């Protein structure tokens, strides 16, 4: 007679060290093999989109900081960019440069957090502290710029709130080569580690068709060989003025996503180098904006490339100073939807590897 076996129902999260916040997966385990995985989200839901309906456009900006709190600058931008497009505002040159510089710095900082925490998920503790040392420098730059370390509230409709303080641009100029050398160091430390490669190669694999069907974006899409980056395909801000590559890979696994994110850091540094060279020292940081922002009646969707993928903002305006309806297309939320499909048949250990590889921020998943 066979021994009676039972499926083990395991709650991973919402309090778990590796679910990157209050995210929960209910997994049915057979031994250590996952039979079924059901993601449960919404623990961090704050109703940002509903709240936005009762706020004027400037008041919404701080709420966007709290969506993807690892990359607040790009969230700021997606909102103000949509409003500016609807109002057809001119943005001063200097403000454009400042926006681009902070967004690319933010991408570096965000990928550093991902790199550190991903290795922490895989069991290596040291890279986390290395990554946070460098991220701390970027955060200090932002702190000097706008007085906040995470929730910047830096951009405004029509420009940016603060001009760069004296010597700030010079500090970034010094930071870029430093970060380049550190990136190389990280590659020598981690990217060749046999255990690390064994853990991520071939794990969480999917093809281009699946990626498109699930609507993935960012590194999760580009790892299947599809060259899609909003910065290239539909240039916003002043991205069309700079030379950079969009890294792609055909592996479709966690290793491909790892390589793409690491390469994106060096591409961001490349953009920064060019932008800092052309940076106009003189000029306005705010364009001509009416005292009360009334967006003309109509609706518009516009998207940008956040570190996690394509983040979009959809605004319906009835001509008032508040949006009639506001919707964020959040890449973390969309990318997460593929998780249950990827997890079936994997082990408990790979759950963490795959979830980490998708790179979610729960603030953005739950909005």
């Amino acid at each position, binding site marked *: 007679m066979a021994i009676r076996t039972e499926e083990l129902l395991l709650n991973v999260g919402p309090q778990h060290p590796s679910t990157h916040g209050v995210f929960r997966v209910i997994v049915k385990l057979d031994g*250590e093999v996952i039979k079924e995985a059901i993601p449960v989200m919404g623990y961090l839901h704050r109703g940002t989109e509903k709240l936005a309906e009762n706020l004027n456009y400037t008041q919404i900006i701080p709420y966007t900081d709290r969506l993807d709190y690892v990359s607040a600058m790009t969230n700021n931008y997606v909102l103000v960019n949509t409003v500016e497009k609807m109002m057809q505002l001119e943005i001063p040159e200097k403000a454009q440069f400042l926006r681009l510089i902070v967004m690319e710095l933010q991408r570096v900082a965000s990928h550093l957090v991902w790199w550190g925490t991903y290795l922490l998920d895989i069991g*290596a503790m040291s890279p986390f502290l290395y990554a946070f040392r460098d991220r701390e420098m970027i955060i200090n730059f932002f702190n000097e710029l706008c007085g906040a370390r995470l929730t910047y509230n830096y951009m405004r409709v029509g420009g940016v709130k603060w001009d760069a303080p004296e010597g700030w641009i010079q500090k970034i100029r010094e930071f870029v080569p430093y970060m380049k050398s550190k990136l190389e160091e990280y590659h020598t430390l981690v990217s060749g580690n046999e255990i690390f490669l064994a853990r991520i190669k071939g794990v969480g694999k999917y093809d281009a068709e699946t990626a498109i069907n699930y609507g993935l974006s960012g590194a999760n899409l580009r790892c299947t060989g599809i060259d899609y980056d909003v910065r290239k395909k539909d240039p916003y801000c002043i991205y069309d003025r700079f030379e950079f590559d969009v890294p792609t890979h055909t592996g479709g696994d966690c290793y491909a996503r790892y390589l793409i994110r690491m390469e994106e850091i060096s591409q961001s540094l490349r953009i920064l180098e060019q932008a800092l060279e052309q940076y106009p020292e003189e000029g306005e940081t705010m364009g001509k904006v009416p005292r009360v922002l009334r967006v003309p009646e109509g609706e518009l969707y516009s998207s940008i490339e956040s570190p996690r993928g394509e983040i979009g903002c959809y605004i319906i305006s009835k001509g008032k100073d508040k949006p009639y309806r506001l919707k964020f297309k959040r890449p973390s939320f969309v990318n997460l939807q593929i998780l249950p499909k990827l997890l079936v048949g994997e*082990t408990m250990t790979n759950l963490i590897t795959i979830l980490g590889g998708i790179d979610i921020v729960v603030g953005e998943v739950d909005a």
Partner: protein
Amino acid sequence: MADLLRNEMTLGNFTIFLLLAVVMLLLVLGFVTYAIYFERKVIGWMQLRIGPNRTGPLGLLQSVADVLKLLLKEDTIPAKADRTLFILAPVITFVPSFAVLVAIPYTNWGYFANMNVGVLYYAALSSISTIGVVLGGWASNNKYALLGGMRSAAQMISYEIPLVISMTGIIMVSGTMNIRDIVLNQDGGFWHWNFIPQIIGFVVFIIAAVSELNRTPFDLPEAESELVAGYHVEYSGFRFAFFMLAEYVYVFAIAALTTAMFLGGWHSPLPFLDFVPGIVWFLLKFSSVVFFLFWLRATMPRVRVDQLMGFGWKVLLPLSLVNIFVSALYIELFLR
């Protein structure tokens, strides 16, 4: 010492034994206290941190404070846990870890038992600890703890075998299982130490030992990022401290065993350095092994369960068997 063992067991002799055991316990506890401090400092330096530096001068009292804190903590037992086993598990884990220390010779005269089956005794007793880990995982009535316990059982079976077989080469060459005699055989310069002729065995032994210790990259039973804390997730206070204590006592034991088996024990590396007392050499080698174990933790990611199993059975076991074969050839060709 050796004479004492042969004497009749009188009250006086018994007292001496008891006192020596207490001395040993204190020594080991002292080691554990400062091994934890040392580990935190070393890893701190490797990770751009300072490590403990607030409690006492240079943070030297940090571990003492931690143990005191654990003593004062509420001792919780989950309502649906198996009470008896839950209480028993840390004891079963700790006692063998302390008992194996008897077999290890520290210097030519400093040892507790001169056993003819020292190697076997160590291997046999150290596997008992795993039962405590599995029991703790099972009795906690927690799914994460259960997974951790099961992993530990699987890991123990897979790595105990290469660990023991990797030592077989030395036993064959030395012709004895007595650890003290094995050390005596390595007299006269570092080229006589076992790790050179037994290099395959040495590598297998170190890898299997790290796995036995449940340390990075083989810390699967407690895999923090997956299983939260693994088998001791429900333990608190002093029961938790017992698990931790057992882990560090094993660090002590494995480092001492490696020193004795492979690194020439108390012998000096070069004959003209013989004037330095043996205990100094022993401590130096011992500390290097301990440092190596801590160093690994700051460097390596964690392997996956199936990779761990595959590596144990497909790489380490054949390698250790090859080592036996090579040792046999060596004996046949050079030692006859």
